[in-house]
């Protein structure tokens, strides 16, 4: 088995196309705006004094800076970069406090909703949201650009890199055997319908893990070099995209939760790709089929615009797509539950269960297909 796994890995990594594609994708990711590293170091220094709990003393100190800066603005005087940073921190403080107040109001509103709930499910769902919001602590502020871009990478480029690499690297895993005529050797050999299939599946999963590791490593190196690894303790709500998230996670927990779900969904997508490959005699058909499984929801999500009930329907479908599971962002940016026998189950849990289910089914179906596979005429 180990020998077969080694050979299957060799076959996957011997494809030049995966290296070309990976370099191309990383080049696209790297082509973003310029970051002044020295300036970022200075900003971090300015932040340090105000990091941690938002206190009245810190707010008072920043209020003075704020007044001075406003005065300079009025007089048309130049503002130092330190003043600029402190002004920004004071704004963040104000924003955080406002958000905390809004959250308090929302919790109060939810409490009355619970009393007026028309069904047991609605009551449980509202209570769950209320408890989740109540447990959020966003009263701390940190310089967190490093972790922020690492989390951002997951749902902007990372999941696309994983998907594209999976489609190109794994798509041909069986169909290339059929189109090259190697299938006759494989299917007539002792382990060609059993251990080889397992070896191909495991090799595919390892390949996906290596891809996720590769872009994560790139993301880490980039974040570390440009911003440093500070601010992991900051709350998830400190990220603009997650202001309304009900999850009381810090960035460290968020990163690992998102990466875990991304990996589970990516492995499921890999298994689906292996399955489509086992069905297709042509490499291009296999690549197109798995490409469509990922790409159609992406097109609906990013390119098409809807309104009213259509949007709700499309969102409901998208929320259960492997594309959105891999992207992860929407699983944590809002409060979304599924009614499972009257119990509200959170979207991330559903994503994991559905991914594992789909992956398991694809694994089983691939085995089933390969047990019965016949060579073409």
């Amino acid at each position, binding site marked *: 088995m180990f*020998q*077969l796994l080694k*050979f299957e890995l060799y*076959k996957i990594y*011997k494809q030049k196309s995966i290296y070309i594609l990976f370099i191309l994708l990383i080049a696209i990711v790297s082509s973003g705006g310029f970051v002044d590293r020295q300036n970022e170091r200075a900003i971090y220094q300015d932040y340090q004094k105000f990091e941690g709990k938002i206190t009245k003393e810190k707010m008072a100190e920043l209020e003075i800076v704020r007044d001075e800066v406003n005065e300079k603005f009025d007089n048309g005087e130049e503002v130092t970069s330190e003043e600029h940073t402190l002004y920004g921190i004071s704004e963040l403080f104000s924003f955080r406090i406002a958000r905390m107040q809004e959250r308090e109001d929302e919790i109060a509103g939810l409490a009355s909703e619970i009393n007026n709930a028309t069904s047991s499910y609605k009551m449980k769902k509202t209570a769950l949201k209320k408890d989740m919001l109540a447990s959020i602590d966003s009263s701390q502020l940190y310089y967190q650009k490093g972790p922020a871009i690492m989390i951002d990478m997951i749902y902007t480029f990372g999941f696309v890199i994983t998907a594209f690499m999976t489609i190109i690297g794994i798509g041909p895993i069986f169909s290339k055997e059929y189109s*090259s*005529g*190697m*299938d*006759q*050797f*494989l*299917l*007539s*050999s*002792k*382990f*060609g*319908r*059993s*251990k*080889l299939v397992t070896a191909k599946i495991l090799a595919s999963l390892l390949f996906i893990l290596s891809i996720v590791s590769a872009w994560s490593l790139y993301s880490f190196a980039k974040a570390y070099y440009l911003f440093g690894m500070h601010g992991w303790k900051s709350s998830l709500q400190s990220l603009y995209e997650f202001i309304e998230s009900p999850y009381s996670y810090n960035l460290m927990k968020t990163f690992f939760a998102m990466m875990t779900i991304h990996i589970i969904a990516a492995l499921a997508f890999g298994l689906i790709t292996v399955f489509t490959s086992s069905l297709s005699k042509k490499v291009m058909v296999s690549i197109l089929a798995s490409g469509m499984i990922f790409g159609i929801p992406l097109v609906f999500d990013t390119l098409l615009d809807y309104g009213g009930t259509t949007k709700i329907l499309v969102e409901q479908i998208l929320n259960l797509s492997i594309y959105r599971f891999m992207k992860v962002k929407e699983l944590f940016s809002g409060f979304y539950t599924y009614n499972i026998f009257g119990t509200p189950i959170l979207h991330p849990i559903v994503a994991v269960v559905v991914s594992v289910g789909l992956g398991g089914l694809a694994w089983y179906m691939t085995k089933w297909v390969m047990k*019965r596979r*016949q*060579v073409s*005429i």
Partner: protein
Amino acid sequence: MKLTIDHLTKRYGKHTALDNFTCDFTSGVYGILGANGSGKTTLMRMLATVTTPSSGTIQYNGKNIFELGDDYRDVIGYLPQHIGLYKNFTAEKFLYYIAALKGLDQKYASLKVNELLELVNLSDVRKKKVGTFSGGMKQRIGIAQALLNDPKILIVDEPTAGLDPKERIRFRNLLSAISGDRIVLLSTHIVSDIEFIAKEILILKSGRLLHKQDPQKLLSEISEKVWLLQVSEKEIAKYQTLYKVGNIVRSELGAELRIISDERPSPAAVLAKPNLEDLYLYYFEEDQDVSAAQI
């Protein structure tokens, strides 16, 4: 050791590729002779379990081969008619890969790979990529992979295609040498491949088994149907239209025709000792491209 085929049929839509094929195989070389489209490859594929029958059964020592699954595949070696190889693999790596697929442990695999590369005369190019190989070299790699697990049943479909005469003789002798304790099923439309090594010859035509007999008995059936006739150059065309004509040997006097016919084609014609090529022509009137392959 016995392979029993019972009423085996394979249909592709409305087309019947193999029709109600029944026979037994025990140790020895079996030559399966037939024109293109006669069902040889379909039969071989079913024997190699890469295609399933539409009806009928194949049993190995009394057990259905498709139920035996991996256990049956463990005892077979298969060389398909059209082989595809991994272009980026070296000859050696390819054989190691097939050895792993066949479940050979690494030490034994190493021994067998060395032995077979030697046997098929590819030791010198063991580190070369298969993609750079000629057709004949690829065929030899195909032969080597089929023998890796010392198969009890060797299924080889058109194995000599692409081999030069020396290699073909070498391969024939190899099959003959190893056939003592195993079943060797060799499909071909090149009669010289099986003429001297086959224990029995199966003649397939349009998916049906016409004959399964030892070569001498088959030849005795056409012992009074092969004629030699001296004709002038002008008469060649006439005889070709009227009869199945095999070899034409030209001389200063005209030409000597080898005619396969149930009746004496001319009072001047004399009976000749039949060979398998004559037999082939006798059964496969429409496909007369065999003589060129005779060594």
